[in-house]
């Protein structure tokens, strides 16, 4: 029984890593661009399909680097063509535009790659279980969690120590002021959007290695990512990371005891958090209101 609980909790940790990576990208875009990016799940799947197509040519590791960059390039085009026009309008419009975009992307991916699930080949040595008792702890799963934490750390360093990062944080605090100080906020927001999309891409490739690819793979991950942001607190990277991991593990443990409630529990956690502490774990008071 204990092993069963550990097994499910560990599964939850993996899925939670995907939630966390998604939530971090969403949270970046929500912060500086002021957009709830409904197409995030679409970009995630797109990067995974890019990786699927690239693996025969450049191998898993090459695809892991190139595919998010390609997804980022598509993200840049989308930002230039659609999102940029909506910055000055009510958030309703960017929400609906990205929602429509999500439909288009899903449909096109289905047309190009088919509705059938596809496997993403991962290196053999990552597939080995680490020990015999804990058969479910494969190298790949450890790799997923480690990469989620590492890339969050890298993003944190970028935001903390580079000029781009300082500008992104300053823009979150007061966009008008940094515009007045001579920062090109349009360029900054494009860069930020692409950065967020690349996180979605990373999540997509990692998830595809574990769960396989379908055009709708983003659908089941994007909602928990919203919840991760609410639970962790808007505007906090650490919050998004922890929020994702917490709801992932909670959902996993629930699977061990009462599988039917494994999804609902995520929303219950959010409800409790909203009642007890509306700003989330690490959220700042009064942000985005």
């Amino acid at each position, binding site marked *: 029984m204990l092993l069963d609980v550990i097994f499910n909790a560990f599964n939850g940790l993996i899925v939670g890593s995907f939630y966390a990576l998604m939530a971090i990208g969403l949270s970046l875009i929500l912060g500086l661009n002021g957009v709830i990016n*409904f197409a995030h799940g679409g970009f995630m799947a797109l990067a995974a399909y890019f990786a699927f197509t690239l693996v025969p040519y450049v191998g898993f590791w090459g695809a892991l680097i190139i595919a998010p960059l390609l997804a980022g390039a598509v993200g840049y085009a989308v930002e230039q063509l659609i999102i940029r026009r909506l910055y000055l309008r009510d958030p309703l419009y960017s929400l609906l535009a990205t929602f*429509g975009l999500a*439909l288009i992307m899903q449909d096109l991916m289905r*047309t190009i790659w088919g509705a059938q699930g596809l496997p993403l080949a991962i290196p053999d040595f990552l597939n080995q279980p680490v020990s015999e008792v804990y058969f479910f702890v494969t190298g790949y799963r450890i790799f997923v969690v480690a990469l989620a934490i590492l890339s969050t750390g890298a993003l944190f360093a970028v935001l903390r120590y580079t000029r781009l990062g300082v500008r992104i944080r300053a823009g979150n605090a007061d966009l008008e002021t940094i515009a007045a100080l001579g920062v090109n906020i349009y360029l900054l927001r494009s860069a930020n959007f692409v950065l967020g999309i690349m996180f979605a891409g990373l999540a997509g490739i990692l998830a595809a290695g574990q769960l396989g690819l379908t055009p709708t793979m983003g659908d089941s991950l994007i*909602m928990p990512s*919203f919840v991760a942001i609410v639970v962790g607190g808007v505007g906090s990277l650490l919050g998004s990371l922890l929020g994702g991991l917490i709801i992932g593990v909670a959902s996993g443990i629930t699977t061990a005891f009462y599988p039917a409630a494994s999804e*609902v529990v995520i929303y219950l956690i959010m409800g409790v958090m909203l009642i007890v502490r509306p700003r989330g774990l690490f959220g700042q008071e009064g942000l985005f*209101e």
Partner: protein
Amino acid sequence: MNRDKIVMSVTAVLLLTVPFWAGYVGGYTDLASRVLIYALAAMGLNLLLGFTGGLSFGHAAYFGLGAYGTGLMLDYETSNTLLALLVGTLTGGLAALMLGPIAVRRRGIYFSMITIAIGQMFYFIAVRWNSVTGGEDGLTGFSRQPVFGLPLNSTQFYYMVLFFFIVGALLLWTILNSPLGHTFVAIRENQKRLTFLGIRVDRYVALSFAISGLVCALAGGLNALLDNFASPDDLRYTLSGDFLIIAVLGGMRNFWGPLVGAAIFVLVQNYVSAITQNWMTVIGLVFVLSVIFFPLGVLGFFRRRSET
């Protein structure tokens, strides 16, 4: 104003006579019922969205609760269609009344995210609670029963939908022209100022949330009766998105905007899905293009033209 009256009269005559001409223009009566049902849901949502300024992305949940409530009543409890519809409507309305206060704890974009998430909770309950809801296959096994001895074929059911559409529209119209409605609009225009005036903004937004949820639930109940079926998709956030685009497409600052939006959306969806597999791309393009080029919606567009 005179032109408005002419347009209203023509619309009223058209709506009253749908079953007689729908077939001649390539439509059918059930399609017109669907237009009215989606219009009613979007008008309910629009009380919150267009008139109170609350961007909810989860109103399909209340629509779906209305559908499941109505269907379950007919399945297990009663053969009285109207009673089932009443219970379904109240179920959705009650859920909105209870969840509104949680959602309004945050405002702005954050409010949208929370409403989506709350909506998805009901979706997963419907999918997972197999024994009651029928799970992913949806709720079947019920059909609309005669009302006052009248069997409800397509035409008669259309008039029943039209009746409830008018009831819902009258309710919303009355509210919007009462002091309560003026408070809602004032919140949309300047929330801070109302707070300073001592108005408890949260409570009013939650009330608007509840009323709009109630109207959505009524529409959902009618939708279940139209199909004799309730699907988990009735609760899903994609349907919430459809209701939003219906309101925006028609013109969310106009009372009748959602009716125009629903007519366009339902007809386009019906037509496009019949001719191409890639209908999702077309619907997606409707979203993107209307948001970029017609932010005021069809009615808003014409109104502005006539004013200038």
